[in-house]
């Protein structure tokens, strides 16, 4: 009430503060749509423009940094000889097989680990350990065991994805409310039905998200795997181009890898939105 006369008042020590309105610096709030679109477009356009400016008006050796036009030209060249297509298909195939195998095993195992403490106790320690062994460090062993064909490349991707994905799927199961499982029992369901008809649909968005993140890892590993005596593949293309100082082809490889990866990401986001409308508020 009467702060000035109150000897114990701390009013004088309180610094006046207020929050000014802002558009750009909104914290965890939506920004206007036009601003959002503009920023997203500049995110790609500005680096492209800088690249073009530097290579057009600068004096940089194209062996060091080729211009966008030169990269486009290299792209056309590689495309017309069908080499680029062959490389892309080879890399996609390895990622596809390795990732699908890893997902096929890791999703059920992750769900079981998350659902049953006994299975978690059995597997979590060894998976936790394996996760910290970088997959590329297995290359010498894989060559020793599996030779230099497709098997070691696919296995490398499998190792890199399987343990991470299992543990991430396991974590999503932890977010299933216990009440939902008990409600299932009260409605006459048994453990199997609770697992298949309640836990699995509840964690589906989480599983898709885990797969989306780990597909990015698989896509990185395929490039690494092609260091193992590959004859084709985008990773192989880049290392060969490097050896012959075809910088423009390195750029083509990098850009193609980036675009394919981004497409996968968008595909998964789309799947998530379509298949799990009920969860849309959560993410």
């Amino acid at each position: 009430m009467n702060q000035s006369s109150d000897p114990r008042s701390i009013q004088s020590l309180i610094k006046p503060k207020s929050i000014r309105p802002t558009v750009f610096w909104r914290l965890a709030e939506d920004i206007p749509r036009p601003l959002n679109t503009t920023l997203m477009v500049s995110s790609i356009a500005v680096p492209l423009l800088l690249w073009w400016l530097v290579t057009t008006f600068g004096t940089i050796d194209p062996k060091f940094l080729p211009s966008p036009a030169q990269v486009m030209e290299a792209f056309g060249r590689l495309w017309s000889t069908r080499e680029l297509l062959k490389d892309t298909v080879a890399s996609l195939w390895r990622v596809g097989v390795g990732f699908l195998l890893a997902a096929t095993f890791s999703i059920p195992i992750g769900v079981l680990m998350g659902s049953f403490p006994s299975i978690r106790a059995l597997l979590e320690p060894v998976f936790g350990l394996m996760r910290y062994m970088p997959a590329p460090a297995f290359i010498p062993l894989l060559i020793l065991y599996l030779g230099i064909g497709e098997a070691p490349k696919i296995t490398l991707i499998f190792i890199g994805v399987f343990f991470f994905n299992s543990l991430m799927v396991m974590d999503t199961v932890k977010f299933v409310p216990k009440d939902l499982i008990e409600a299932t029992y009260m409605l006459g369901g048994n453990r199997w039905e609770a697992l298949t008809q309640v836990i699995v649909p509840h964690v589906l968005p989480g599983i898709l998200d885990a797969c989306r993140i780990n597909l990015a890892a698989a896509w990185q590993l395929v490039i690494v795997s092609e260091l193992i005596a590959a004859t084709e593949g985008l990773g192989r293309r880049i290392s060969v181009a490097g050896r012959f100082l075809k910088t423009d082809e390195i750029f083509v490889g990098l850009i193609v890898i980036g675009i394919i990866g981004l497409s996968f990401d968008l595909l998964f986001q789309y799947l998530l939105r379509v298949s799990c409308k009920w969860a849309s508020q959560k993410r």
Partner: protein
Amino acid sequence: MFLQIKQLNKHFATQTGTLVVLKDIDMTIAQGEFICAVGASGSGKSTLLRQIAGLDSPTTGEVRIDGKRVTGPGPDRGMVFQHYTLFPWMTVQANTEFGLKLQGVPKRQRREQASYYLNVVGLSQFAQALPKELSGGMKQRVAIARALASEPKVLLMDEPFGALDIHTKESMHEFMIDLWQRTGITVFMITHDVEEAVFLANRIYALGARPGTVRKEIEVKLPDRSHTIKRHAIFHDYRDELMDLLRRHGQEAALAVA
């Protein structure tokens, strides 16, 4: 002797020793009764309900429903939880049918049964909605419809209206009275809200805390169950008696008086 709780004790092992949560609970409930067990936090009322539900088993003693000993959860006891437990990916209709589906009822019959109970709770036009599109009160009504669809012998309710605002809560109370009178179902509800208990129950078990015991059993005889009854002296008498009873054990701080 429809729902019987005999000499039920529940102990939990803790780091500091054995904690007695429920001590010598005896309850006898006839078919068609509306029972409220009222207690402050620490009275073990949720634990008691879990024993009846079969989600947990007593240390000693037993729960019998229609003469049959409860050994695990099952659809003969319809449960409405405190937190919303609708399955978020299922429509209201699918949620209501789910129990019947688990029990192997053919599609057509379970559709009809679910529609009937959605009508009972007044949510027929929301049959195709997802739970996230419903308000809190509507969610609990779907949960009630889902429990009733299996035609349970008793409806167990774990502070089902605790998270609702006062107006929604009051309309849910009237809804419950109406539902009880129309269906004649046996209800066993736990709550910390004394007024809620007096308004709804025909019999109240007042629980004392630490350990949870039955302090008193009160038969509630109100001339009618319309919301205006809450202004009458007779309602206040029941309420005050219960409040005093629960206060005497020093847990008034934990009591919410609506």
